[in-house]
């Protein structure tokens, strides 16, 4: 089938198209630069056309989600809909059911969402859930930062074996890249402890967080992976964590980017939910925003990218492999808390969280997120996330967009809605910058695609997948700084969401359900090293894992119809 999206106003930062009125054509699932006279015309006159959204960091599939849904049935009561001829019923607000997750992203005009934390031991289950989330392509990021084998190799500075281990484990878990969460800290939690700063050692491992980060970053570049290491640094959410964040950033100074697939991106480290890592002070009593210091440092380093983890003022659910942090949250809020240990790999914790405009701490977190968006100069280096569901559900992205585009709206909130700490402890009221539609398209599409090294999405380049979103907003007829509510409304539901050339959303309704696809990275050229490493660790694996080696890998039938990205690792 051939289609032509006619007369839209196109924002495609990867091709430097900034609000031009033009047609976008696609055929057989791909963007093309011309179609025949038979092409079906979709009239999108004066509506915004962008590549479909790419979410670089969200928690949508895996054991944490299931545990979250099980122990928060009160969340599942929110957002319940009846099934229709096209859709299954939906449920949940902060932890939507799998179908609801797919539908809601699709309604927002998204096509790709990265599952940000997959314990390899639970990878099978993660892929089962990915298979039940419709409409999206979903790569998943296996966790390596507290893996016993990785920590052992890092202690010996054995980068080559780490690289072989990672190459093998990406195949085994059908993963996309290296995720690191509170390196050494989640392991320490097994002993009821945490690490503080990057120079603390995991108990009984004699290796520091910084050593693990550097070793994994080097291995990442040695393998030429399309994405860099993706890190949730130490000391998340702790007042006074700015020095840890800056030391984490500095740890990868001088590490050279890989070749081939690695050349699409600029960074060697992606810092996730930077908002949670930008707190000054010593305690919750004297905490202030560290956004200025963090952004200043970040702007100077050209080898880093980040996403924000913007607080949205909702009742949500936090879930992370940073289990000791969840325990800290439990001690603060007293709400019901659950915790999990994943053998030799990682841990996890979950607790409900209520971000309230009346709360000084929530207000501070909200302001820090926005400060970072406004103080980080290059939109290509920052992505829009809420670390869904940790700082809020992804369904609030349109609201965040409206805040970024309207200083007036932000000022109004600072003066009339949120806690007075915003004036006393943050710079937000002094920041007047406003994003435009081009910037928004950058932080929600072009930048995350580039950061992940995708060469088939995030842009409307001929030959790319026809992943396209159309919004019922006329950029020539709206003043985003004065019409924040209309901006939110306009981005809330796409007029069209097109995925691989299939029209999934039409006139703001889902008209088609499409099976999801996993994207995983297949490193080539390391096969012998991989086997050597597997042989080496086998006695340990047999002794300490509760599953047999034969049952550990994600077998092909768990991943139907995957998109395999072959990477030349040598």
């Amino acid at each position, binding site marked *: 089938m051939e289609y032509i999206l006619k007369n839209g106003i196109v924002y495609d930062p990867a091709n430097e198209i900034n609000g031009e009125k033009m047609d976008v054509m696609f055929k057989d699932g791909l963007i093309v630069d011309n179609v025949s006279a038979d092409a079906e015309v979709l009239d999108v006159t004066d509506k915004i056309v962008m590549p479909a959204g790419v979410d670089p960091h969200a928690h949508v599939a895996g054991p944490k989600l299931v545990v979250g849904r099980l*122990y*928060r*049935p*009160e*969340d599942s*009561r929110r957002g319940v809909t009846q099934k229709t001829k096209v859709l299954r019923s939906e449920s949940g607000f902060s932890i939507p059911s799998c179908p609801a997750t797919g539908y809601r992203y699709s309604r927002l005009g998204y096509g790709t969402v990265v599952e940000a934390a997959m314990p390899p031991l639970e990878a099978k289950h993660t892929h089962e859930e990915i298979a039940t989330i419709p409409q999206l392509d979903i790569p998943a990021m296996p966790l390596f930062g507290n893996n016993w084998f990785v920590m052992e190799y890092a202690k010996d500075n054995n980068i080559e074996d780490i690289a072989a281990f990672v190459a093998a484990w990406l195949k085994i878990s059908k993963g996309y890249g290296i995720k690191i969460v509170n390196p050494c800290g989640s392991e320490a939690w097994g002993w009821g402890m945490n690490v503080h700063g990057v120079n603390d050692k995991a108990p009984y491992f004699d290796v520091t967080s910084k050593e693990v980060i550097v070793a994994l970053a080097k291995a990442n570049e040695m393998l030429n992976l399309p994405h860099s290491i993706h890190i949730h640094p130490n000391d998340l959410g702790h007042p006074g964590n700015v020095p840890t964040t800056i030391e984490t950033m500095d740890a990868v100074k001088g590490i050279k980017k890989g070749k081939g697939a690695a050349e699409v991106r600029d960074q060697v480290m992606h810092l996730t939910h930077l908002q949670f890592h930008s707190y000054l002070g010593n305690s919750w009593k004297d905490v202030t925003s560290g956004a200025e210091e963090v952004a200043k440092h970040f702007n100077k380093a050209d080898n880093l990218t980040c996403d924000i983890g913007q607080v949205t003022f909702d009742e949500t659910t936090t879930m992370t492999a940073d289990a000791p942090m969840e325990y800290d949250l439990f001690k603060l809020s007293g*709400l*019901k808390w659950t915790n999990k240990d994943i053998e030799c790999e990682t841990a996890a914790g979950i607790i409900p969280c209520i971000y309230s405009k009346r709360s000084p701490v929530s207000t501070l977190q909200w302001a820090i997120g926005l400060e970072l968006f406004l103080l980080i100069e290059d939109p290509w280096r920052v992505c829009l996330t809420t670390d869904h569901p940790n700082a809020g559900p992804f369904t609030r992205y349109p609201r965040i967009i409206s805040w970024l585009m309207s200083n007036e709206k932000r000022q109004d909130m600072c003066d009339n809605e949120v806690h007075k700490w915003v004036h006393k402890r943050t710079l937000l009221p002094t920041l007047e910058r406003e994003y435009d539609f081009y910037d928004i398209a950058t932080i929600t599409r072009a930048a995350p695609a580039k950061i992940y090294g995708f060469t088939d999405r995030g842009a409307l380049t001929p030959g790319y997948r026809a992943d396209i979103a159309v919004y019922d907003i006329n950029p020539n007829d709206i003043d985003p700084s004065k019409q924040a509510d209309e901006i939110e409304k306009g981005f809330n539901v796409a007029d069209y969401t097109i995925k691989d050339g299939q029209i999934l959303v039409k006139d703001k309704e889902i008209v088609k359900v499409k099976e999801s696809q996993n994207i995983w990275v297949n490193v080539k050229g390391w096969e012998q090293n991989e086997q050597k490493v597997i042989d080496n660790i086998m006695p340990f694996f047999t002794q300490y894992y509760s599953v047999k080696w034969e049952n550990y890998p994600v077998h092909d039938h768990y991943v139907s119809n995957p998109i395999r990205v072959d990477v030349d690792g040598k």
Partner: protein
Amino acid sequence: MKTITFDQIKTSSIALEFDELIPDEIYSWTEADFAKYQVPIGNSRFPITDFFDITVEGEANGPEEVEMILNGDLNRVKYIGCKMSAGNIVCNSSVDLHVGAEMSGGSILVKGNAAAHAGREMSGGYLEIEGNTKEFTGASYIGEWRGMTGGQIVVGGNAGKQCGECLTGGRIHVKGNCDILAGIHMTKGLIEIDGDVNRWPGGQMKNGNIVIHGFLGRLLEGFVLNGIVVDPEVEGTTFKGKYIHYTGDIGLNGKGNLYLGAEANKEKLAEYGELDDEYTSIREYRNL
């Protein structure tokens, strides 16, 4: 005033769901509107007129001017008055699950028994059940830690397990007996029980008040004896007579109050002998 009378003509083995048929929604409806309405039953909808003859008399400008009268066997009608904010509902029968759940105003009278979750998470209004209730009267729904926050529930008969679970405000008065774990996890509000309680009221309570006039079978370890009080005043009500006063649940640093009628629990009182400051419920528990 508008009176809407539902006279049952047929029952259903799968429950009818009445949460759309509340005064807030139907105050302007005519008989013709009801004739068009389909009521949810399981995963389908059926004409309400298959099950009820509906008569509408008078006019209403808002939900507060509506009285709904439900006649027949309502044992398979659930969500009656769920989420209503005003008006009156009279049920001349026992009713199914979730009667008055999440109501914020108005009143409901049930001339019979109620199934589980009566008055669940209600925030205002008045719910009276002349008969017994099953589990979770005035409680929170599964997983939720914020239960009933306001309003009043009166149960003429006995109440089932976990009555007033997670109570966060409002009042529950049970005129009969109460099953286990009344007021578990409560943080505010008042539960008054005229009859006996078999065991464990107030488990993990952080605050709020439980008054039991009848006999208590077994108290949890986390309650510390405060002493004997006479005519205690609790949330504006004076309870005449002598009460044994406990604080709990100390496991959670709770500051909740539990008052036990001294007369009905005089065996317990006798066991205490000379009361001294160190006397704790833990000792009492072991003695039982």
